[in-house]
């Protein structure tokens, strides 16, 4: 089994009205159900974290810019780590991710293990 990183991206939005608790609740369910599907297969390593939309970008020469990142069309919204036998299987797991329903993307990447078992 190898570990894989899911990176969630969606268009940076920082001028949307804040969501009501009910809206937040109804947004949480598909995420929880999706993570639960992965966890029920014993393939969840870490549910990871979600990121807020504000941030800073630090560049050489102490150049600091505020997010959102004008160069990027899509901002990173969060990440999750799963375990699977192959990149294909990991990709299969990502298919139900709710971010895909709101125009976002999931990038699936193989994590290089720290300890290599021979």
């Amino acid at each position, binding site marked *: 089994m190898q570990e894989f990183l899911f990176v969630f991206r969606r268009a940076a939005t920082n001028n949307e009205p804040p969501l009501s608790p009910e809206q937040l609740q109804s947004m949480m*369910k598909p995420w*929880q159900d999706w993570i*639960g599907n992965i*966890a*029920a297969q014993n393939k969840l390593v870490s549910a990871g974290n979600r990121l807020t939309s504000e941030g800073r970008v630090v560049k050489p020469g102490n150049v600091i810019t505020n997010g959102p990142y004008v160069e990027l069309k899509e901002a990173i919204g969060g990440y999750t780590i799963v375990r699977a036998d192959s990149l294909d299987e990991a990709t299969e797991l990502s298919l139900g991710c709710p971010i895909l329903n709101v125009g976002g993307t999931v990038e699936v990447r193989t994590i290089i293990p720290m300890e290599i078992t021979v």
Partner: protein
Amino acid sequence: MEERQLLPHLFRTEYRKIISVLCRHFGIEHIETAEDIVSDTFLIASETWGLKGLPANPTAWLYIVAKNKAKDFLKHQAVFSQKVAIAIKTSKVDETIMDIDLSSQNIIDSQLQMMFATCHPCISTEAQVGLSLSILCGFGVEEIADAFLTNKEVIYKRLARAKEKLREEKVKIELPVASEILGRMDAVLTTLYLLFSEGYYSTSQNTTLRKDLCIEAMRLNIMLVDNEKTNTPSANALLALMCFHSSRFEARTNEKGDSILYEEQDEKLWNKELIEKGEYYLNRASTGNKLSKYHLEAAIAYWHTHKIDSQLKWENILQLYNKLLQIEYSPIAALNRTYALAKANGVNEAITEAEKLNLTGNHFYYTLLGELYKTVDKLKAKEHFLSALALAKSPGDKQTLKSKIEQLTS
């Protein structure tokens, strides 16, 4: 209480108290001496009471005999160490060392401290449960073997090795310091959880023994929440879980000892008092910011005390299982979660997810698939129930599956 029932009853209730006090007094290195003294005390009681009838206060009688035996041992120890250690001038034995304190406060304190010693991380979890059963619950080797579905020799060796290890590590019989209590509590709670599960889910046919295991686990858990140092949210959550589960004890087996499925239970037999206690402890558990698996399992068990199906009930249960699986995966949680998924989100979605679980060695997996297919495809449902039947071991499980297959074809 009848005379012939009194001694076994006292053994259950007093053995652990005396042994905890003696162990704490002597130190863990003399744990076997403490066991011998208490066993001897009960042997003398059975002989003397059998001949001469019951004393006025049997419990006090036991305490006095145990105290005297303990004093003999301590005197012997003192003489021995003085002979060896010639440096010690005084020949008078210190009277305060001789004073075995069997007051109710010291009995409670000693048992609580003993709980942390028998759940010491230096011994395996299986040994922790076994030792707790032996020392803190007064269970005989045979009963422990029955509970673990193994033989006496295995248990005997396991207990002996565990005691040897505690001696080697010089484990102290005391409450861990405040900064360590939370870390050490995990092992204690795990042991109580296993102790309870052993009773609740064991396939042992001995229902009295199983109920006793559950009661013992709850009794020890109550001691934890009654002490301010060990009264943590997780300990309350675990106790709530035990209360909710045991509220169904009378309803889950028939007169013959066969198990009755949740859906078919008579809810009039559910113990209302235990359900209320469960709610009380679950409320007490709702402090702090740590959400333990006991919180989640207790909340799931709480929803199961509502017999009537509702969208709200199953949506809550589904979300609790989603969180539980993120904290700790277990096949049974994965299966139960998929059942809740069917109830909350529909059978088709649940079938898709169930096919991915890959628990093909588990008869509950095929039972779940059979249940899910029941309304969609009877032929497939039957196939799955037959696969489950081929894997099931206990006569009770087999009977349940056979009647499920019959219901399908009728």
